[in-house]
């Protein structure tokens, strides 16, 4: 498959060799090149060294052993979620920086839910970006799920309030709320997000039941600060990583998994409705090191 990562090409030169300091340094470099970050890369390779140092080891064995180390970190974060289940209406909000894939991920999840027969409502909470509403509307039409919206420039929190009222009145299973992209260092925009969360709590103290932070696989170490900020502001409950169909392998997720006890629900592997997969620690780790 598409394992044309730098890691793969790097490992290919190893062949059969001793797991010595040089090899470990190369491995560390390869992990750094996949965005694990210098510290985590060191930790993972030294953990590998503990068990196998100075042993003859083939290229395939190296990859698998490395994948296992990473899987161990990620496994506790593996958590399949069924949004159509649980409280009614289940209120699910999507947050993240600009262009990370929030709207598309909602579209994909909406399509899945429709197949399962859930009664859902999409809320166009991005009242800022040009054609954000039109984009979500297309996804709503594809999934045959209604989209609730207000004109551009309207107060997003007000829209969300009305949407939840409606979902309660109509006895819907769930509400998927899109929000505008925002960089985590923008105080005003983060305050706006906080307000949206506050408003949903007025109608249901347990809402939003899920706050999904959508991360782009191409992002580097800044993802750590994204998780931190959105967790503090919006009470993130789970993660989705998109764009894993490209050359980026999203290794920063390993660093995030070490630092935060947050489940990773899905990965995005394309732009179409079907391009969403439940997160698998093993599959992700293997793809990361090219051990498929």
């Amino acid at each position, binding site marked *: 498959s*598409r394992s*044309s990562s*730098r890691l793969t090409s790097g490992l290919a030169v190893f062949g059969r060799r001793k797991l010595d300091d040089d090899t470990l340094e190369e491995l560390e*470099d390869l992990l*750094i*090149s*996949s*965005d694990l*970050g*210098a510290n985590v890369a060191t930790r993972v390779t030294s953990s590998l060294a503990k068990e196998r140092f100075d042993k003859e080891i083939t290229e395939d064995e190296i990859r698998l052993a490395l994948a296992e180390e990473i899987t161990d970190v990620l496994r506790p974060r593996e958590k399949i979620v069924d949004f159509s289940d649980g409280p009614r209406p289940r209120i699910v909000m999507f947050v993240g*920086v*600009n*262009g*990370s*894939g929030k709207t598309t991920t909602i*579209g994909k999840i909406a399509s899945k839910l429709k197949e399962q027969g859930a009664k859902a409502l999409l809320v166009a909470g991005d009242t*800022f*970006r*040009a*054609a954000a509403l*039109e*984009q979500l*509307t*297309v*996804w709503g039409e594809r999934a045959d799920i209604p989209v609730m919206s207000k004109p551009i420039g309207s107060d997003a929190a007000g829209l969300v309030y009305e949407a939840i009222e409606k979902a309660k009145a109509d006895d819907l299973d769930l509400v998927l709320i899109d929000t505008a*992209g925002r*960089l*985590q*260092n*923008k105080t005003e925009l983060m305050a706006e997000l906080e307000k949206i969360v506050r408003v949903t709590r007025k109608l249901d103290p347990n809402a939003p039941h899920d706050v999904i932070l959508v991360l*782009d696989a*191409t*992002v*580097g*170490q*800044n993802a750590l*600060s994204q998780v931190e900020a959105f967790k503090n502001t919006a009470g993130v409950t789970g993660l989705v990583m998109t*764009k894993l*169909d*490209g*050359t*980026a*392998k999203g*290794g*920063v997720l390993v660093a995030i998994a070490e630092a935060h006890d947050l489940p990773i629900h899905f990965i995005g592997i394309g*732009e179409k409705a079907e391009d969403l997969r439940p997160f698998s620690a093993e599959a992700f780790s293997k793809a990361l090191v090219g051990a498929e």
Partner: protein
Amino acid sequence: MFDTLSERLGGIFDGLTGRGALSEKDVSAALREIRVALLEADVALPVVKDFIGNVKSRAVGEEVIRSVKPGQQVIKIVYDALIEMLGGEDSDSSLRIDSPPAVILMAGLQGSGKTTTTGKLAKRLSEKERKKVLLASLDTRRPAAMEQLAILADQCGDNVVSLPIIQGQLATDIARRAMNAAKLGGYDVLILDTAGRTTIDEQMMNEVAEIADIADPSETLLVADSLTGQDAVETANRFHARLPLTGLVLTRMDGDGRGGAALSMRAVTGLPIKFMGVGEKLDGLDAFDAKRVAGRILGQGDIVSLVEKAAEQM
């Protein structure tokens, strides 16, 4: 972060002041810290390695000046080398758009900021250079991509127009239609916004290469997210291999990312970084500023004044 780098370097060089030239051993310890700092800033590993080699050869043998801390002296060397690698202090954000209608082609990964940057460039060219600008969206894939560009064109005022949308046309056909319309309509500039694509999607890479063949752009800009991690080199190289790129645009520089991707992409392509996106609104586009980005890669802080102070004392 800068403070920590500064402190770390300070610690390494403690007791070194006034001891003559910096030895290879002194410098090596410092370079390890700098390596970590650059990696934390998302500079791609191969670029970090080149950079470290470059700095090492400059720093070894440097006389330690009594009045300046060696740590600061090394930081100044690093800072200067960063600026140089980023293209120098006099950045050139001018676009070659003399022969009307000049075509500017925008390309990049999904969600990198192409459409927004297209709107920003149009606004800038129409307001600052009094150009008549036609915008065309060749994005036949993303839902409402064409509507998005049309809305942005409307926000730019009378001198910016978007090509009427015809559903069902191929991207390459839209490119041809746009070129005709630009000629007939007497436009100075035609900006072609394209769909986002991953670089391993052969079909889509072929499409954009074909668009470039048809449109023969005077400028082909790779629009990339400044928050990009180690993948920056791969993406830049792959687009560079398939398109006649003339420059880079780094978006989301208004974030708190350290922006190492700027250095990585510039280093592997040798292309100038023409602009940085610094906001979601149409006025959020700045000419690239190597000093600002170098300071940020080193971790914000008050690097500029610190370095100036060091320079004065040298």
